[in-house]
């Protein structure tokens, strides 16, 4: 008897394709009756809304800074308002002819921010470099030297103020939050109680009232003749507020660290601070990256509340630009859409960056 020869079965294509755009649409949009129905409903909704929006925002829009053209019947969005007012919206009350200074200062700070987000910058010189950048920012903004006219802080405004407020408060709130979070888990009752009171007090009031107190009530308690700039007080207020929230997020991360990690560190002879610095915090912070970024994003938008104490950051500057000008006041929606776009650009970058950071810190978990 002869041995059987091996006859390989030739490869065939899968009967139903699962790759490519057509397959994607079939699987994800019309997978079964319910999904198919939902897809159709959503499509119908979009068809109802989108054409009108685009007709208003693009096809019937007036693009030139001419408010008479905007008032003609049938004209849609009036983007001329942005073209006309963008300098005030972006820079607030900062003296018109000196607006190159906030532009320069903010560009340098933004460049430093973007740099700091990359691995190459995570070195010991990052902190002194930031001190230099911040000093540069304040010097250029404030002036009073080398022929630069002095510009008091109450005239600072717009996007530079938004960026500076959020950057500074984030950078200061983060270390404070770490200390508070560790303090709430301290074995010393006095420290634990103090940290708990801090968190509960600050969380118990709205940011607006913190700002209000920082701006109007705080000076009443200062000795006569001593005054701290309102901008500084507001920065401290936002920082303390953000730190309380962030501390709770970090504490959540700390609690997720197994006790065995701390015991292992103890048996290796590590001190309390060494254990926190090398073992606990790196793991705890890695776990809460998405929540911390959540805090940062909401902090960035919360800076718009400083308008209440007469600091005109981006949102406040928009009001400033339009409220005082009867010709352009009717076109607030367009103005708000413009600054919404700016806010979105920043927040979206932050959330994308957060995803990258998560990947970086979770390397040990990759199998």
């Amino acid at each position: 008897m002869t041995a059987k020869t091996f006859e390989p079965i030739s490869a065939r294509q899968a009967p139903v394709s699962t790759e490519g755009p057509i397959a994607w649409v079939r699987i994800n949009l019309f997978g079964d009756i319910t999904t198919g129905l939902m897809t159709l409903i959503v499509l119908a909704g979009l068809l109802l809304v989108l054409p009108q929006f685009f007709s208003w925002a693009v096809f019937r829009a007036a693009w030139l800074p001419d408010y008479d053209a905007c008032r003609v019947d049938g004209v849609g969005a009036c983007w001329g308002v942005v073209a006309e007012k963008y300098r005030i919206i972006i820079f607030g009350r900062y003296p018109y002819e000196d607006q190159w200074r906030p532009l320069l200062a903010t560009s340098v700070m933004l460049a430093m921010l973007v740099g700091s987000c990359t691995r190459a910058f995570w070195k010991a010189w990052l902190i002194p470099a930031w001190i230099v950048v911040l000093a540069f920012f304040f010097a250029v903004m404030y002036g009073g030297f080398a022929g630069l006219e002095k510009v008091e802080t109450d005239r600072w405004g717009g996007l530079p103020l938004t960026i500076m407020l959020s950057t500074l408060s984030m950078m200061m709130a983060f270390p404070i939050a770490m200390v508070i979070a560790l303090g709430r888990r301290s074995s010393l009752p006095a420290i634990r109680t103090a940290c708990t009171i801090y968190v509960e007090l600050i969380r118990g009031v709205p940011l607006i009232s913190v700002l209000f107190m920082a701006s109007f009530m705080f000076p009443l308690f200062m000795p006569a003749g001593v005054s701290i700039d309102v901008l500084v007080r507001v920065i401290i207020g936002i920082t303390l507020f953000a730190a309380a929230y962030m501390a709770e997020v970090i504490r959540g991360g700390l609690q997720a660290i197994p006790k065995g990690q701390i015991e292992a560190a103890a048996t290796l002879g590590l001190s309390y601070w060494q254990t926190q610095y090398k073992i606990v915090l790196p793991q705890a912070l890695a776990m809460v990256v998405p929540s911390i970024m959540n805090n940062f994003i909401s902090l960035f938008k919360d800076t718009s509340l400083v308008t209440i104490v007469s600091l005109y950051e981006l949102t406040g500057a928009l009001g400033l630009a339009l409220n005082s000008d009867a010709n352009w006041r009717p076109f607030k929606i367009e103005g708000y859409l413009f600054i919404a776009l700016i806010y979105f650009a920043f927040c979206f970058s932050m959330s994308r960056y957060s995803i990258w950071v998560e990947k970086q810190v979770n390397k040990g978990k990759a199998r």
Partner: protein
Amino acid sequence: MAEPIIVFDKLNKWYGNNFHVLRDIDLSVAQGERIVICGPSGSGKSTLIRCINRLEEHQEGRLVVDGVELTDDVKAVDDVRKKVGMVFQQFNLFPHLTVLENLTLSPMWVGKMPKKEADAKAMAQLERVRIAEQAGKYPLQLSGGQQQRVAIARALCLTPKIMLFDEPTSALDPEMIKEVLDVMVEMADQGITMLCVTHEMGFAKAVADRVIFMDQGQIVEQNNPHDFFNNPQNERSKDFLSKILGH
């Protein structure tokens, strides 16, 4: 016999007010002695060895480790921890550090050793537990047996006089237990004082100088392995042995 390296003197410990977990423990361990501690769960075995490096505090009695009495004095505790290595049931490796970084952490931060020297020392220990090729990986990328061997190497990096093992093989898949026990047997040949909480009776027979049986916070019986396994003196230990050696 030389001066004992560990002495428990009428040691008592409670969890809270009512749970009397260690009762009148008297025990002295000679330098280089290898002790296996067994007993039912909840009998206080782990608590007993965790007192030695003060992961647990006792309320009554004295505990002296290599001439240092363990008290609230932080310096004494630091002193003792430098001499005592510990291996846990759950390994407790640091997942965010590589294997090599796990080993060099303590020599560099506590012992102030330069990185190069610490690396060399760590690699030597990894060779010893036959896992040097995994030095650059993260703990979670290794099997359980490999992780436990890394944990042993990490403890050895302190050059400890005493090694504590808290059920080192209980969390392992059966086919990985042997590779860990092999490493421990080799260590036993090198004169280090070992206290090991385990139910691996084969290991106890092979390396232990003394087997201690605990129940309800007390030392019920202690003897050399041969006599303990073949001729237990106490009803309670007889019963326990018949259950774990039953099949």
